[in-house]
Structure formats: C-alpha cells, structure tokens
C-alpha cells in the first residue's frame, strides 16, 4: 500500500464513521515488511517473511469513546466494521473528557528529516540476508569445544504509517531497522550458560557485520560456573544493556495514566527531588537516526525535546490529552521517545575499578515492582567485584528495595549509552543495594 492509498482508506473510514453518527474520528493505517532468518549448525533453521497491514480507529460518539483495530481491509467488510463499531459505542457511558486534542497542538509538518527509515533494506535480497546471519555463526563455529548451540539471526523490518483525524491532522511516519544477533549455549560443570549479543541499526550502511558471534560467545564463556554470595548490602553496578529494565518502573510511574489510576509512586512529585543529582534524563524525539525519533506522537501532538529529570529533580510527566484533562494538568506527550542520559566520565571498566566490594549486574531474571508503592524485587545474574576486579560470575540471587529511595542511591553514571534502542541507558552504579543470596 502506498501513502496515498492509505490516506484514501483513512478518509473513507472517517467519512463513513461520521455518516453513521460519530462526532470525531482518528484513524491510523500501517503496513510493514519484515524478515527473520535463523542459522543453526550451518543450516537455515528458520526463514520467515512477513508482510502485514493494519488499521486502528478511535471513535468519539455522543461523548462516548471506543477504539478498534483490524487487519481485514477489504472495503465492504471494513465499512461494516465501522458501522458496528459506531453502533456499539452508543451503549457506553458518557465521558466528558473524551474528545480529540486541540488542533493547535498538532504537528504541522515541515520538520527536518529524522532519518528513521532506509528503503534499501527492502531491496536487500534474501541470499545476502542469509549470508549476514551465517557470518555471525561462522565466526565462532567449532572454535570452542564447550559450545553446545549457536543460533545466529538476521532481522529487519520496514514500516510506514499514516495518521489522520477528523479535526485536521494528517501525517505520515516511517521506520526501519536491520540487525544481526547471536545466541550461544555452552556446557558448564552444572548448568548450560547462555547469552546473547545483537547490534541493530536504522540504515543499512550502519550495519555492523562482524564481531557479533564473537561477542556473544565471550559473554557466555564468562558466565561459566557461577556462584551465589552471602546476602547483604553491596554496591551494584548495572551494565548499560540491563539498566533499561530498571528504568521501566520509573518511567511507568510518570505516565499520566499511572498517576490517575494511583498506580504510581511519583504522584505529586513534580519539581521535587526523586533521584540522585547526577541523574539527568532528556526525552529527545528529534534525535537524528534515533530508534524512538518522531515528529508527532500517537495523538498527532507536535514532538518537542523535554527534560524528564534534571539533576535529580522531576521536571515533566508523560501526559496525554485524555489524562491531562482528567488530572487537570497540562498535557506533554503520551509517552517517551528517545531517553538520553547526561553522561558521566567513566566507562564500565573504570566503574568496576572504583568498586571495592560489589556486584556487576548484567541481566535480570523475573521480578516486579509494585507501581503504587515502588517496592521492587528482581532476580539477577552478573559478576562479583572485589577491590576493583571482576572475580567470578554470580547467579540465583535477588535484589530488593523501593524505587523512591533506590534512585537516590545512584552514585555514578557511565559514559557508555546503550546504542541499540530508544532508552540510551549508560552503566549505573548504586550504593547499598539489598542482595539476597546464601
């Protein structure tokens, strides 16, 4: 489907919904093409190609609201779908806060190219993709007798979307990525350690083609024969890949919806200190080639750069139109784009050197955080550090604490932002974390 065809369907759906009694309508139409290739033992284990499309619809009918989605875009059926959806909405209760955003807040076009899409990914032939995955396996195949299994993968996706509202928004966005990854299992004394490494990019020219298999194997071998250490309070260094997981509950707590549902430990904390002064986080939607870059959010709202945390002070919540009205707070944007962290001056190796007795956490295993109270507890794996040196791998341990206090124990931030996602988390060092082990 090209962009014009998508706009035509969107217009048709909006007109039909209004004809059937809707007051306002928003429609998003997307299509994407993606491939997934897995290589195992020199053979293609899986070759998967997907081409899909979808339509989603928000309806505002007599102050009542519903939303719908379908991948069945045959015109007659789609029109019946819209009719049924409008009719059903009328049975709901009224909600005075449900109406489209003020059109003044919409993105009006004319922004710089954010370079979120490379159409060349579509033209890469399947054989080349297979070769890219093979390369990751070849790097390490047969190089170590402890290797039990290697799965090397190539993934890519190209997608394009249009979003149209009945009060004047019309916009399109595109995205792509390609990446190579490898997952390795090796035979240990007791278990079978497993780890993974993957590198992703938006533009094919930026694709890192070698070293991925090697890195996955290194990450696995260092986990051989882990131990459990005594329960107690330790310094905790979280590596940049794992740090994204710790951000999850914190970001969730500053959503308007979480605050309204009282599922946030940061209600009423705007402009107060919620974290150590070394933490500064910026939501930057306009970062060129960012995985989360955008000119407008899911509601069509013009994207702007905002401070989320500045020197430990909570500056902005993520507030969409609906919950902004309910909370009587000015709306910002419905959710994060790229989260950029103010850098520290040390890399991970230097941070390890600074630790007298602690644990480098490289992965989390389950666990959860109670959104209302901030109490958390997670399983971890990683490495024991003593006198600035990594001693041995640790596993089968938990960390526990409360998010309100925990972020104030952040004592150092690395200069190593994670490059392959929209949360550009650096390594982070926390003081006095509760570990449970032996």
């Amino acid at each position, binding site marked *: 489907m090209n962009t014009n065809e998508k706009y035509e369907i969107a217009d048709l759906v909006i007109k039909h919904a209004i004809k059937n009694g809707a007051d306002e309508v928003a429609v998003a139409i997307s299509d994407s093409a993606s491939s997934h290739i897995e290589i195992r033992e020199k053979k293609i284990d899986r070759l998967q190609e997907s081409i899909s499309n979808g339509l989603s619809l928000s309806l505002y009918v007599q102050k009542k609201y519903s939303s719908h989605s379908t991948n069945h875009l045959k015109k007659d059926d789609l029109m019946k779908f819209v009719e049924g959806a409008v009719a059903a909405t009328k049975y*709901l209760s009224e909600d005075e806060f449900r109406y489209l955003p003020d059109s003044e807040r919409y993105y009006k076009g004319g922004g710089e190219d954010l370079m979120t899409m490379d159409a060349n990914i579509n033209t890469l032939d399947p054989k080349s993709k297979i070769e890219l995955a093979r390369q990751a396996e070849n790097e390490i195949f047969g190089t170590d007798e402890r290797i039990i299994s290697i799965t090397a993968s190539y993934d890519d996706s190209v997608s394009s979307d249009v979003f149209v509202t009945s009060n004047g928004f019309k916009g399109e966005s595109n995205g792509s990525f390609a990446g190579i990854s490898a997952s390795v299992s090796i035979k240990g004394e007791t278990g079978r350690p497993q780890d993974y490494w993957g590198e992703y990019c938006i533009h094919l020219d930026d694709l890192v083609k070698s070293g991925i298999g090697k890195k996955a194997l290194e990450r696995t071998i260092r986990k051989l024969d882990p131990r459990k250490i005594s329960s107690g309070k330790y310094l905790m260094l979280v590596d940049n890949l794992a740090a994204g997981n710790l951000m999850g509950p914190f970001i969730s707590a500053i959503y308007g919806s979480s605050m309204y549902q009282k599922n946030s430990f940061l209600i009423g904390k705007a402009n107060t200190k919620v974290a150590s002064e070394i933490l500064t986080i910026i939501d930057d939607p306009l970062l060129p080639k960012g995985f989360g870059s955008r000119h407008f959010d899911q509601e069509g709202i013009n994207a702007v750069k905002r401070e989320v945390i500045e020197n430990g002070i909570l500056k902005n919540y993520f507030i969409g139109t609906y919950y902004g009205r309910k909370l009587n707070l000015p709306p910002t944007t419905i959710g994060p784009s790229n989260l950029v962290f103010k850098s520290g001056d040390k890399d991970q190796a230097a941070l390890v050197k600074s630790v007298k007795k602690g644990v480098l956490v490289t992965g989390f295993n389950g666990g959860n955080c109670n959104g209302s109270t901030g109490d958390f507890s997670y399983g971890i794996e990683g490495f024991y550090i003593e006198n600035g040196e990594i001693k041995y791998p640790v596993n*089968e341990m938990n960390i526990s604490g409360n998010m309100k206090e925990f972020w104030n124990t952040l004592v150092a931030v690395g200069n190593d932002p994670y490059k392959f996602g929209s949360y550009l988390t650096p390594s982070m060092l926390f003081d006095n974390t509760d570990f449970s082990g032996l």
Partner: protein
Amino acid sequence: MNLKRREFIRLGGITVAGSMVIPSLLNSCKGNPVSETAASYMDHFEVTPEHLQKVLATALEKGADYADLYFEHTVSNATSLQDKKVNSAYSDITFGVGIRVLKGDQTGFAYAENTSMESMLRAARTAASIAESNSVWSPSTFNEIIPRALYNITTSWEDVVIKDKIPFITSLNDKIFAGDNRVTKVNISLSDSTTYILFYNSEGVLSWDYRPLTYIMARTVMEENGRLENAMVSQSYRKGFEFMTNDLVDSLASDAISKTSRLFEADKPKAGEMEVVMAAGSSGILLHEAMGHSFEADFNRKNTSIFSDKMGKKIAQDFVTVVDDGTLPGDRGALNIDDEGVPTEKTILVNNGTLTSYIHDRISAKFYNVKPTGNGRRQDFRNVPLPRMRSTYMENGPHKHDEIIASVKNGIYVEDFSNGQVNIGPGDFTFFVKFGYIIENGKLTKPIKDINIIGNGPQALADITMVADNQKIDYGTWTCGKDGQGVPVSMGLPTVKIRKLTVGGING
C-alpha cells in the same frame, strides 16, 4: 458450532464478526470429499478443497518434507470500567492464513492476510524457499480429524451485545466500593474472543476448531493514611457468556477486598535462603517456570535445556507426578486440537519422580521419534507453532496441608503471584510473590508481599520434600510468553514444601 447463523451484525454488539462471514454454505462445496462441517469452515475462509491442495502443492514445489496451512479468524472485544462507569470499549479482528514448510527441522514460514489465491500462493512460494530442489506433491485425500468438544458453550460471545455485559461490570464495581471504605479506584475489564481455525497439512490432516476465551479482571486501589495498596483479581475460561454470573461477581468482589486490604499489614521478609511452602492453586507457577519451559522439546533438541540429558532419569521424589494437560473442559489452557492439527492429551511429564516425556510439537516429535503430544501452539497465524504448555499441574501427594505448615521452623508460605521467568540453560527460575506469610515454629505469622523468589529448576524439583492431597487448578488469566509469542495457559498445585529457595528481602 453452526456457522450459518453468524451472518448478521447484532446492533449494539461491539462484536462485528458477522461482517466477515460471507455467504451461506456455498454450493461449490457439494460433491467435495469433505464433511459439511469442514465445508462450512472452508466457506468461512472462502476457500475450497482444491484451493487448499493447490496452495500446499506450491508450498512443496521446492522439495520440502511437509507443509501446513493454518487459517485463523479471531474477533476480540474488551469492555472497560473506570471511574465507576463503563466508558470505553475495544474490539479487534485478526484474519489470515499462516503457511509453514518443513524440511527436516528447518522451517520456512510466511502468511497472507487475505485468502485470495494470489496472496496465498505468494506466501506459499516464500515459505517453500527453505528447500532448494524441485518436486511434485501428489495431493493426499482428506483425513478429517473431528475435534473433541472441550468448550461447552451455552451463550456464544458472538451473540452477546455490549449492553448485556455492562450490568455485571458495574455490579462488580459497586460491590468492591461497598465492601471497604478505603477503596479509591477500581478498574475492570471484561474481555472475550472467538477464534475460528481451519487446518490442513500435506499428510492430508484436515481439522478445525471454534475457540472461545474470556476473562474478567479487576484492579482495586485502597488508600489509608496516605498509603496506597493495590491488588488484581481475575478469572479466565474457555466458556461463553454463561460464565458471568452473580456468584462470580460476588466472589471476585470479596477476593478484591480481602486481597487489597491485607496488604496494609504486610512487609518484606528477611533476605536469604529458606524453606518455602507453596499454597495449593496458583503456586503451579513453580512448575511452569522451574521445569515446564525446560521440558519443552525444542530446547532439549538443541541441547540448551538443563534437562537435556535427564530423560528417563529420576529427578524428584516418588510422590512427585507432574502433567501437562490440554483436556480440562472449559480451562484456559484447554484445546480440542493444537495449532498443528494434533488432538490434545494429558501428557505425564514426571511420573512418580521420573522424567517421562518432554513437551512436543511436530518437529521435535519427529526428531525424538515419539508421538506429538498436542503441544504445538502459536500466538496467531502470523507466528510459527512451538512446543508450549497448556495446563500444567502436579497430582496429589501423600501429605496433609496442616502437616506441611507444622513441619517448618523458619520459612515462608506463599499464595499469590504476579509473574515468573526462567533461564533455560542455567535453569534459574523466578516467581514474584504478591502475598504470603512468614512461618515460625510451624505457624503462619507476619504477612509478606512484593518479593521475588529465585531457585534452580533441577535442584528445586529434587528439593520437593512434601506434597499434600489438596490439588487445585488456578483460573487466573495466565499468559505464557516465549519467543515473542503469548498463549493462554493455566496451572495448578497441591500444597508443596521445597527444602530451600532464595527469597528476596531486606538485610539486617
């Protein structure tokens, strides 16, 4: 199910399924070698027996061993309450056909989002490219597998309009608010889905399924002296609208109040290793994480599971028997046929302490030269089937619940959970405890909450020292994730004691 009556849209129903069910039984199917039921599913997807054979022949034209077609049409609805009003609703239609081609254990896969021959043949050619020679497949005859009837529906969700659902939702909300004056927020969602499946493979297996699935979920927040606590209650079944009753509303409301209010008394325990008693019911999460995933045969075929070399070996005490069952009527994990057209069964994984079976799909069953166990499952037509659990539970043992509690000097008793995870290779598994108690000198004492427990699968299984006779299946809305695909499951356990697990908490 009779499909003929699904041709209309019920006004006021958020359900819009009828919009896609095209004509009544087509005459074109007459004289074809399939039953009237199979023909009605073919009509639903606008395909004929000849179409199916043509698409399969194309999928196999490069010389693969096996191919299958999985047609799916799912209509889902969710009706939600916030601020004491049912003021939002959601619906979704998912429609398409997944085409899978196997050569040995290699998989080629593609799908089409409509069932025109052009789209299906294009997807078939893509999937076919996993093989690289040329061959001609001679169509098999149709070998129909009549699915068993595990979901006995009185009122189909397709016949329920939104206004019929609203009174139950508001009644649940009112009862929760009436039950405790600390309640400040209640969010409720009633969700249902109806799935039509048509399956055909190159061995001639032709089958179909009509799968209802529903859940109701309520999240309650209470506030006391500025402190917030929240708890979730839910129930889920493969049942029709008849599952919504006033009794269910009453029991959910009373659970919501007790589960939320007791949290004000609870605290974190002391960190470290200790004896853990798992309550009967949702503690089945232990089986799901500590062993279930590690028994999935794809991990064992690839040698990456910690149980890869344990088949036929003693891995637990004699009184431990663990099953994965796809045949519990109305259960969230039940399936008449799996997503590879294999009838489900009750699979004994651990029999009196000995590992007797892995969890198989067609690929792994062929690899191990065993019968498939009916565990080949997929999230939807866009995904390949994988070995997945259904309802995983432990059979009763010789001990008594009270005897187990009384036997613990220092430990914890856990009874409510939100999530769990496992690392297949090392075997480390976790589950997150929403509520439990400390056990001191054989008695339950202080309530505890919000802590993670971690252990090692084979060790924990060997460390099960007592199993009670009070087995219970949990009807919570459990969804199992693997390889990016979610599927509905259930779980169960009698009261069980584990000698030692590592409990999250505070230090000194």
